[in-house]
């Protein structure tokens, strides 16, 4: 007997799913903000000439790039309060985990963009008598930013997808909202398919837009 699709489980509970989507968006934006902030600091540390700054930054980056984010979520949510008495809400724990984990990746995006600018650009600026600060701001950063754009967007997408791990902490985001709806309606196929399609639509559309913007940026400079 063929399965009969029935999306009423979704249509009747769309407010729950919508508020879940809101949770996903808030967590994503907050996570990106924290990740960029810490990531920029880490990148500056790694690029500095001082070993005491470079080493801790490198260790941090390597650790968080090479361990699963789910472990970080649990560490912040269950580990911290038990040992240190710092209790984080599910949002706080998810934000800490996301921000810190993605900071490692953002740091590498920023650093990669900056070191990718050819040495000749530094030299040309110096030869014109530009100060380091001005040279960095006017010559290096604009070129680096352009090269960072694609990996930066990619990292943001990864982060958005990673927010679903907060469902494991029972934080109310899209996936957790879906789980709630499923336990009430016993319609996993329809509900989870809709959730997948929502992610697909949003992320695919966003990636198309960013690709288009990038192509336009290149065309504008005659390349």
């Amino acid at each position: 007997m063929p399965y009969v699709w029935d999306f009423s489980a979704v249509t009747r509970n769309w407010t729950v799913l919508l508020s879940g989507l809101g949770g996903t968006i808030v967590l994503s934006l907050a996570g990106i903000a924290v990740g960029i902030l810490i990531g920029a600091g880490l990148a500056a540390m790694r690029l500095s000439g001082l070993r005491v700054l470079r080493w801790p930054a490198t260790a941090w980056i390597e650790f968080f790039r090479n361990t699963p984010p789910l472990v970080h979520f649990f560490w912040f949510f269950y580990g911290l309060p038990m040992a240190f008495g710092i209790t984080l809400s599910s949002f706080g724990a998810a934000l800490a985990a996301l921000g810190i984990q993605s900071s490692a990746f953002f740091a590498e995006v920023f650093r990669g963009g900056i070191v990718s600018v050819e040495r000749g650009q530094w030299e040309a600026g110096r030869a014109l008598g530009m100060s380091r600060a001005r040279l960095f701001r006017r010559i290096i950063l604009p070129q680096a930013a352009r090269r960072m754009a694609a990996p930066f967007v990619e990292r943001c997408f990864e982060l958005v997808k990673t927010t679903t791990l907060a469902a494991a902490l029972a934080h109310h985001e899209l996936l957790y909202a879906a789980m709630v709806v499923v336990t009430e309606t016993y319609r996993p196929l329809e509900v989870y398919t809709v959730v997948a399609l929502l992610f697909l639509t949003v992320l695919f559309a966003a990636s198309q837009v960013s690709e288009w913007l990038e192509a336009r940026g290149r065309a504008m400079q005659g390349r």
Partner: protein
Amino acid sequence: MTSPEPVVLSATAITKRFGTVDVLKGVDLTVRKGERIAILGSSGSGKSTLLRCLNLLERPTGGTIALDGRTIGRPDGKGCQRYDERELDRVRTRVGMVFQQFNLFPHMRVIENVMEAPRGVLGKSKAEAQAIAERQLAAVGLAEKATAWPAQLSGGQQQRVAIARALAMDPEVLLLDEPTSSLDPELVGEVLAAIRALSDEGRTMLIVTHELGFAFHFATRVLFLHDGKVLEEGPPEQVLKAPREERTRRFIERFTERRF
């Protein structure tokens, strides 16, 4: 002959070591106002390193550089010079440089490339900087390319923009490191013509080049660098036509026998 022109730039006993390799082994050089010095030498002889030491893009391991009679940096008491970043920035505003690879700023339009340093470093107003840039671009024959992007220009045009960019700072000395070496042969002429035009205005220049014919007619003095030392120097007629040193002679032969 009138009284000699004042000394603009001088290098005394310059040495430069990278790791364990001695690239410059004691170079002395005095550049007077209006001189045009061609630096010759085979690949790896230290020509680029010498130029880069002269504007302190590389800090010499030993020896001193003086601009307008004032020694740059101060002795650190151990026989070397200490340099202050700010001071070096000031020096570099007065010693221009043109690179083999042009190094235009790809994210700025042609005129913005030329305006950037007069505006940001010399603190000129936008109108002033723009006037300077337009004048320099016209001088290299690229006035109509002002709003183009560097990537839209040919190599020869890019290098002429780079020359205009350096001249917009009105430097006392202009250093050119093989300005035509990465150009297609048919584009070399336009760049050399732009450089030649500068000699008419009496610009002081040091140029590293393999264009011996150009060096012969353009330079007031030729310097042959070998193995980190000045092996021979003198007027072009002497160094290029009647070199004293065997090595210089062989070098010149190698570069002339290609021409027919």
